[in-house]
């Protein structure tokens, strides 16, 4: 399985002649630069830290934890240690070394802590061949679970992640940041998701990053936007629960976060609608 992991890792890098040959070997369509860019640059950035950090940002503590794993093995971490291609390559290296405990730890700490949800998001939106690539990668990783056994404890990343802040008790801007922070909200919202929301709700989509876009949707029609977010969170809760058998406490964590998001957003939506009604009545 080591070589398959390496091949799948290489496909998470910008396409070249090498990756085209690998895709053919795996029976995948040829990856194009445009498909790669849309998938990994615009929609789902392939960095563990973006999904595991408590602030939803690339780098920081989550990246340092991956780097720490390299250092613990006496190796110099690469410049972007949490890039998907890098973590998969590192894991393949561990497989070859035959260090089962380290391999088990790496699998659960740095791969399965975020990849099931991430790969699902890729499958939803990406252009070919990346949905099929994501399916293959997930299947390969779940095979590893069969071999190495289940998670013993919740990965370090996912402990002590703060809850979604209730905007009624804090700075209202924080809710936007938190919703776009997968480790807190249990939800992955891509630019394509927000474009879809704008289209469905007949709202305009502002040019800008996802925070600007989501804030703009909420400012234009808060009840509708909140209802849409709650719907997304419900869908994600179901997705996470579908992994419960394979990834146990990790899936449980993600599902509980999505569930808490549903509860909070439902409440907010109710409050906002009542406020709108009260305003209209007065």
């Amino acid at each position, binding site marked *: 399985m080591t070589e398959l992991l390496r091949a799948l890792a290489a496909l998470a890098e910008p396409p*070249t002649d090498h990756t085209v040959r690998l895709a053919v070997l795996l029976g995948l369509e040829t990856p194009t630069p445009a498909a790669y860019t849309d998938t990994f640059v615009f929609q789902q950035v392939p960095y563990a830290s973006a999904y595991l950090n408590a602030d939803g940002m690339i780098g920081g503590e989550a990246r340092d934890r991956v780097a720490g794993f390299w250092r613990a093995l006496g190796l110099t971490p690469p410049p972007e240690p949490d890039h998907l291609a890098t973590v998969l390559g590192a894991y393949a290296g561990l497989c070859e070394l035959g260090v089962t405990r380290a391999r088990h730890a790496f699998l659960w700490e740095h791969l399965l802590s975020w990849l099931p949800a991430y790969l699902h998001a890729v499958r939803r939106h990406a252009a070919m061949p990346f949905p099929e690539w994501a399916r293959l990668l997930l299947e390969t990783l779940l095979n590893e679970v069969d071999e190495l056994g289940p998670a013993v404890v919740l990965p370090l990343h996912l402990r002590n992640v703060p809850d979604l802040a209730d905007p009624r008790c804090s700075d209202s801007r924080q809710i936007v940041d938190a919703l776009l922070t997968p480790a807190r909200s249990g939800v992955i919202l891509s630019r394509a998701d927000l474009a879809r929301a704008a289209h469905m709700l007949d709202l305009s989509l502002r040019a800008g990053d996802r925070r600007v876009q989501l804030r703009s949707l909420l400012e234009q029609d808060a009840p509708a936007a909140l209802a849409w977010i709650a719907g997304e969170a419900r869908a994600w809760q179901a997705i996470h629960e579908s992994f419960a058998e394979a990834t146990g406490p990790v899936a449980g964590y993600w599902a509980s976060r999505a569930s808490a998001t549903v509860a909070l957003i439902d409440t907010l939506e109710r409050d906002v609608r009542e406020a709108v009604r009260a305003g209209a009545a007065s």
Partner: protein
Amino acid sequence: MSVQELGRRVSAARAETEARGETFYPGTSRIHLAAFPPKERWDDWVELDSRAWPERRERRYALVPTTCFNCESACGLLAYVDKDSLQIRKFEGNPEHPGSRGRNCAKGPATLNQITDPDRILHPLKRAGARGEGRWVQVTWDEVLDHLAARIRRAIVEGRRNEIMYHVGRPGEDGFTERILAAWGIDGHNSHTNICSSSARAGYAFWMGIDRPSPDYANADVILLISAHLESGHYFNPHAQRIMEAKQKGAKVIVLDTRMSNTTTHADHWLAPYPGSEAAILLAIANHLIQHGRYNREFVRRWWNWAEYMSAEHPDVLATFANFEHALKETYRDYTFEYAAAESGVEASAIEDIARLVASAGTRLATHTWRSAGSGNLGGWEVARCLFMLNALMGAVATEGGTYPNAWNKFVPRPIHVPPHPRTWNELSWPDEYPLAMFEMSFLLPHLLKEGRGRLDVYFTRVYNPVWTNPDGFSWIEMLKDESLVGLHVALTPTWSETAYFADYVLPMGHASERHDIHSYETHTGQWIALRQPIFRALRERLGDPVGDTREVNPGEVWEENEFWIELTWRIDPTGELGIRQYVESVEIPGTTLGLDEYYRYIFENSVPGLPARAAAAGTTPLEFMRRFGAYEIRACVGALHEEPVPASELADSMENRFGRVHTTAPARLSPNIVPLPTPAPDEAGRRPVGVNVDGQVLRGFPTPSGRLEFYSSTLAGWGWREHAIPTYVKSHVHPARLADGEMPLISTFRLPVHIHTRSANAKWLDEIAHTNPLWLHPSDAARLRVQTGDLVRVTTRIGHLVVKAWVTEGIRPGVVACSHHMGRWKLSDDGQRQMMRTVALRQSGTEWDLATTRSVAPFESADPDTRRIWWTDVGVHQNLAFPVQPDPVSGMHCWHQAVRVIKAEVGDRQGDIAVDIARSHEIFKEWMQLARPAARYSPDRTRRPYWLLRPLKPARDVYRLSLVETATAGAIR
């Protein structure tokens, strides 16, 4: 197919591929560099036209390398030349460049703004009215060259060599212009160093002879930075990427900076000391290492000149290492954490924390200071000296992860002609009062001329803007307007500047893609060279259509600078009778000027080890290789050169002095690398220093008088500064004890990451990001002054005042204010640069000058539609105008920090207003001159300057003798 079957298929394919000797996986390191076009496709690279989106329109490019001409890093650039329109469409990084490795800061890509600047100077101009009147006529290059050559020739023939001066801002090719000036036989090199880095250079030079540090950041465990090296350091981009690499590997970063910067936000430990107290903190750390025995005893024993120190300062004690250690403990015992805390305002526990961290670094301690604290304070040179003392204590000198002397990580290839040292000494650049200055006392020029110390017949300002950049700019204007002091002022510049307005000729020079230079900088542990080149010349040659003169391919009449100097030199001595012409003459075709292809071909074929073989392997010539790829790495991981044994062949007739310095009569090896190095004196018998005896073995050592690292400087002791013979803490001129009631220190030296001194004022992408410089004011000071962000304040210096908007921020220490470099640009009429230069009125009444805005920047129509979108009007304040000169008596550095009073603006004050009395500035010049210790009085050997110290253009040795200089001066006056 199952995943198991797929796995087997990939394994089989890999085995088959690798059996053929081919690469199967591209490797994960490609994540970064995959974005770069592979170099084998640089002749024909296809990209989609972003402006045509959503249509997929392909554009074909030729990719031609050069190096950036904005800051000193000389990062690699790749020009994307549209093959249809033959226009440069963009600049990106050159992945082949060993220093920058394909990465750039904002200033690199903004080269495109500079070369397409609608306001740039495209033709030689001559003033039509009075100097500074702003009226110009276009002239031909021939007219300019003939006029300049005749005037310079007359000065040389009439023995007025010291009336020719070249004053450089951004350096070009290492040593090129110095060699031109040496060919003319003049000591006419003047630089910007004393408003930039003199103090840092002095601090490093007194330790190791070499005046610049070269930290191996990437391999460090602990990085200690004085100021904002991550965002605006001297080698900002190449250093920043290596600092971040180290951080990713777990290194800890310590930053000392009074002001919150992007660098402090990336630090593990940030100390914000009171300005000028940095050396006290560093000595407290040193004291911790010394008192607790946490230093590298073996390194100190082997490499410090402790025996010389004991002999000089403790002659009654047996000069053993144990006794030295005892003396060291006694000497530094008072530099406690509490003492440093009292001086700096930083908690003692915070200083102790970083002392422990430094102690844990071993030989992987990388440290760096360049301008900042060193350039701000009286005695600032001790900051660099005390900082390097930490490396010297830890043995982190030229180690992996430590700090190198820069010359070991730099390669300056020997050129085809090397003229001899000039036989004259220019007292306008090297006045008697500053025998140890590093280097020319450039910023004193108006005052020295005012005192009647000489005059200039031809004065070149070359990519330099002293009216704006130097302190006391009104004195510069007064000097430049006085034709009896400056006979002819020639501004060589790619952009309009405040100085160019006061020129007789404004001559257009090229930007990064329009000029040649070879560069090599100490960006990491390795030696590399890079070629800056005119893009279209290289492209034409690639297409088989060689270009003889770069003006054929540059915009307008913009010239390649090296060709200009060669042609000018030829016209000064067209027959060769003055002995000058030979240094710019072709060897291949005698009797003709040296062409640049021949000049560079010689260098690349003869002076760059390994390049001819590398080029041959690529199937090309060395010159073509450099034109095609732009850079070449000569050597990686240079290592500890001081530890290299001196071969027996170099030890013929050698003699060793009592401190182990070894001299020899064997001739020196002729190195292809002519990187400037100090030249320690020969012994009494004329033997040259070759090494130093360390534990019975003669090692190469350091280029210092002792051959060791000089904890004790016999130079300082011998030239009247015995109290500074070992690293000490000097209290700054802005020390609280020296401030009057109500005065605060003003920090004015910090730079913004997106600008380059004064040449980026029309770089629209950069201007939009940063275009003004408010006064940083702590909330507690703002409350005391009843000032809010955006309010105007008046900042009074000792010679005048400036008016500026306040920015209330927690990012500055209470009791200290700060205002950035780059801003407050101005022009005298609506012509000239219009994106960040407001129009002003200059008024003079006796010795009182003032400057006020008459028209702010505004949108305007041009070939570039973006100039219609200028949305800012506030371009800040030109604060340097209101600063007096404050020369440090040892390093010669202008001590930039100012003692100021800040009050709310008065009625009638407007943003950017300046008022100065230059009579007062001359008085302050005299006050600071009183601190100096002149060579005539203090020189231990009747010379003007210790010969061994670096000097950019070194006169012949006998010219150093005071008596000879005096005779020559008297002769010139006669």
